Each structure stands twice: as structure tokens, then as C-alpha cells.
């Protein structure tokens, strides 16, 4: 096991940030912590990277205890915090050199590991880090977290605020790093990224709600979701919410995801109801469940 977390809790003043959390990450696994802002993801990262002490519980990373052997952990892991924390006034190359030197290595020694990513920012190597665009900052931060060839890589919301194209490329990079044997713990508020992980933990309000491979999380969901569409979306949401047997109504892209309380629900009844309420261009069909649907119903 690359990461073992057992009953970790942490409170700030009286507020429980995380509450008796346990999970394990296998060597070479790409493991995702999926949850919104405030779920406790960053607290977990800070405890595992030895920057914060837990109130209760124990954890090991790469075989080292997070309290007793914190120095060994710091040499074996790479950490990319959610907030950009490189030196804004140093250039791209200076930042990378700085982190290589701190860890007693050189850019050349581990260039293989960062090559794919670094060549994308190399044209700007003399630019100050503070003057980079969001996507480039993120790539530089990843290079700096990798330069000492860590066994475990911690990425805290690496794609928040990043556009869909860059997000896709970022995940492709993570897959390649994984193939090089690096264990990756990554957090994200984007539910669609969950499908890219080997296993995920759904986390909310400091508690892990579920851990499994993404396919099982979707398969285990037992309610039928309907895609509903009509010309006036805003009015459709209101009317669906007023339907007597509605269980949940949420906008999902171009369709509304509708779940009914009744086992013998007949979509035709709903169709009639919407017609009575003067909706036009009505479409109702069974939808495919997504991680986001499961998450919202936890």
C-alpha cells in the first residue's frame, strides 16, 4: 500500500473538518477524492504531506508514518497545492531549478519525467511565473512537484478554474505519469473527472460517503433517472418540482434529470401533465446515470 489512512479526524476550533476518515491507495494507483469546496479534501492533503497534525487517527505514506517519519515523507512525495505557490518573481526556469536544488537533484537528472510537460512551457522559460496564464502555471507547478522523482504525487484541485481543453490534457498527463509507476492522489470538484480515476472516494462535509471504482458507483445506483426537455427550461424546472410524486429535479446540461418517488411511475403521465401546463417540444427518455447524479443523491 502506498497510502494508508486510518480514522483520521481534524477539527479547527469547534468545526470538524474531517471526521474519522479511512482509505487506502495502492502502489501505482490513480485515486480521486471527489467533493465540493469545504468537503475536507485540502485538510486530508495537508495531513498526508505532513504539513498539519491530525487530532486523531494514523496514516502512512510510502511506508512512512506521517508524524514520526515526516522528514522521509517530504523527500518521497510531490505536492501541488490548490493555490499557486511557486515564486511569482522567479522565471519558469528559475523556479524549476530552485525546487530541483532544494531536493538535491538537477533538472537534467529527472528530465525524462517532466519532459512531456516541460516542453509545453519551455518557450516561456524566461517569463516570470507570475505572468503566466492559468494553464501554464499549472503545468509549471506540476513540473516542480515532479522534479525530485517522487513515489507519491499529491494534487489538490489541479484543474479548478481550468478550461475543458486544458483539463483533458492534464488528465492525459496524469495517466502517463501513472504508467511510470507514480502513485497519484488527486482531488477535484469536477464530477466528470472521477471517471478518469482507478478508484474514487466521494467526500462531503468531512466524511467519506463511498469508495469504489467509478463503474461500480454508477452501477450500484438503483433509481431510474429520466432526461426531460421542453422549450421553456426555466418553466419546466418549476413545473417538474410541482409534480406530486417528484423525488428530485436537477438541470443537467441540455436536459433536466428527473427522478420519481413511485415504483410504478409512468412517463406518459408526466408527459400529459407537462402538456396540460402548456409545454411544447416535450422529450422524456431514460437517462444514463453519471457520478454527479450519484453524488447529488448521497
Amino acid at each position: 500500500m502506498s497510502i494508508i489512512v486510518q480514522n483520521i479526524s481534524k477539527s479547527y476550533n469547534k468545526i470538524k473538518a474531517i471526521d474519522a476518515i479511512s482509505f487506502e491507495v495502492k502502489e501505482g494507483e490513480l485515486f480521486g477524492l471527489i467533493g465540493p469546496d469545504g468537503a475536507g479534501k485540502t485538510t486530508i492533503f495537508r495531513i498526508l504531506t505532513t504539513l498539519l497534525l491530525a487530532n486523531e487517527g494514523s496514516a502512512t505514506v510510502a511506508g512512512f508514518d506521517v508524524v514520526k517519519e515526516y522528514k522521509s515523507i517530504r523527500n518521497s512525495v510531490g505536492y501541488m497545492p490548490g493555490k499557486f505557490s511557486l515564486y511569482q518573481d522567479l522565471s519558469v526556469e528559475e523556479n524549476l531549478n530552485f525546487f530541483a536544488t532544494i531536493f538535491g537533484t538537477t533538472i537534467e537528472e529527472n528530465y525524462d519525467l517532466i519532459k512531456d510537460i516541460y516542453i509545453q512551457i519551455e518557450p516561456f522559460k524566461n517569463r516570470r511565473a507570475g505572468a503566466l496564464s492559468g494553464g501554464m502555471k499549472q503545468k509549471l507547478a506540476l513540473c516542480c512537484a515532479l522534479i525530485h522523482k517522487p513515489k507519491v504525487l499529491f494534487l489538490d484541485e489541479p484543474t479548478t478554474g481550468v478550461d475543458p481543453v486544458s483539463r483533458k490534457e492534464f488528465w492525459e498527463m496524469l495517466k502517463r505519469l501513472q504508467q511510470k509507476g507514480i502513485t497519484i492522489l488527486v482531488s477535484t470538484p469536477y464530477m466528470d473527472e472521477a471517471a478518469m480515476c482507478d478508484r474514487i472516494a466521494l467526500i462531503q462535509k468531512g466524511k467519506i460517503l463511498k469508495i469504489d471504482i467509478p463503474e461500480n458507483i454508477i452501477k450500484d445506483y438503483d433509481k431510474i433517472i429520466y432526461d426531460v426537455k421542453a422549450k421553456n427550461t426555466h418553466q419546466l424546472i418549476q413545473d417538474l418540482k410541482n409534480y406530486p410524486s417528484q423525488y428530485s429535479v436537477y438541470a443537467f446540461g441540455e436536459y433536466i434529470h428527473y427522478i420519481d418517488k413511485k415504483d410504478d411511475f409512468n412517463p406518459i403521465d408526466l408527459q400529459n401533465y407537462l402538456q396540460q401546463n402548456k409545454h411544447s417540444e416535450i422529450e422524456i427518455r431514460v437517462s444514463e446515470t453519471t457520478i454527479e447524479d450519484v453524488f447529488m443523491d448521497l
Partner: protein
Amino acid sequence: MDKEKIIEVQNLTKQFGSFTAVKSISFDVYKGEIFGFLGANGAGKTTAMKMLIGILKPTSGEALVAGFDVKSNAEMVKKSIGYMSQKFSMYDDLTIKENITFFGGIYGLSKARIKEKTAQLIKELKLEEVADKLVGSLPLGWKQKLSFSVALLHEPKIVFLDEPTGGVDPITRRQFWEMIYAEAHKGTTIFVTTHYMDEAEYCDRVSIMVEGTIEALDTPKKLKQKYNVASMNEVFLKLARNVE
């Protein structure tokens, strides 16, 4: 939809030294429309938006916002619009009530009006129990809902939302969009940027910026037809090649 133009942009351009961040863009936004302003990081969205809200002077070109010229009448533009930044910008050390009062004052509302608006907002957002708590203690989703309402305090004709839902949980994100729909229903124009492509589907029309120009502008339905794909995410991936 009422076809009254609320934003008119003609050949709007912004250069920083030798770099052209926004290259002669032109488009119109109509009253009561939800207009999605999309693009990759670094495509020029923020620069364009800053020009439209009157805080950055264009190098060339014209833009009328709520009838006012952003170059010659920037102060009137600022008074006529609401703006919600992607970075939470209310005072964490003031209570919810104090923040509303403060921004009401900034927008020049009368004391009686501020009192009335404060009560109305707190009721609408169901924040009665926490109205006297510090804003800093609220979860992100609530902060964003509050910011949105505060941006609407002075009843602007148009409100600019810069990535209002980044990092927000899926349920609150949807509640936020229901607030947007309700506001657009009242006739307020919504100009919104987002990186969630499911949210792009909720817009009446969507523009996609690539390297400083507007590559596509249409309803989500027509864009999907044009590029022959099933979702806005695919439209975006097709258009916005990563060119940093």
C-alpha cells in the same frame, strides 16, 4: 425574446505592448438574454470583460453597454451594471447584513431602500438564521449566492458574472443557475463565463473565444448541429485548441 440590444460591440481591440489580447471582436447581446462567454484560459475573456465593465480602456473599437460608451462614459457604464468577480470580494469580517448595507450604500441606495432590500434578500436567500454571522463563516456556495444578489442590489439592466460557480458543489451550482434563470425572466441580461460545459447548455446564446477572436457565436443547439456533436463540451474541444 425582446430584440432590444443591451450590449453592442464593434471591432473591440486591446493590445498590451506587442501582444493583442483581444482582436477586433464584434457581437450584440439582447435584453433579458443569458449570454455565455466561453473560451480557454488565456483566450482573452477577462480582458474583453474588463473593457465591457468600464475598467479597462480599449485600444480601438467601440462598445456600448446599457447605452453608454465604455470609452467616453465608463462611469455611467459602471452604474448601470452589476458585476460578480470569480474571486469572492465581499468583506469576510462583516456580517451578512453589514455587507448588504455596505454595498447598498456604495451603489447609492437610500437608507430606507437599503433596509427594505436587506430584509428582502435575506428572506429570499433563506439566510434569516445566519444574517448576523460573519460572511467569512459561510460555505462557498452560499457566498456566491449572496454575491450574486448583492450585484443585483441596484437593479442593474445587465449583470456580469465571472466564473460564478467554480468549485461549488453540484447542488448549489444548480440552485445558483435557478437564480440566474429567475433573474433573466425579470428582464435582466446575464453575461456569464464558466468552465462547466453543462452550464453552457443553459445559456440562450454562447460565444467561444480562441486566441483573442470570437470563433463561434450561436445558440447551444445550433452550435452542436454545426459541429455535428452531442454536447457543448465537444464543441468547445473542437474549437479551443490549446494555443497558449
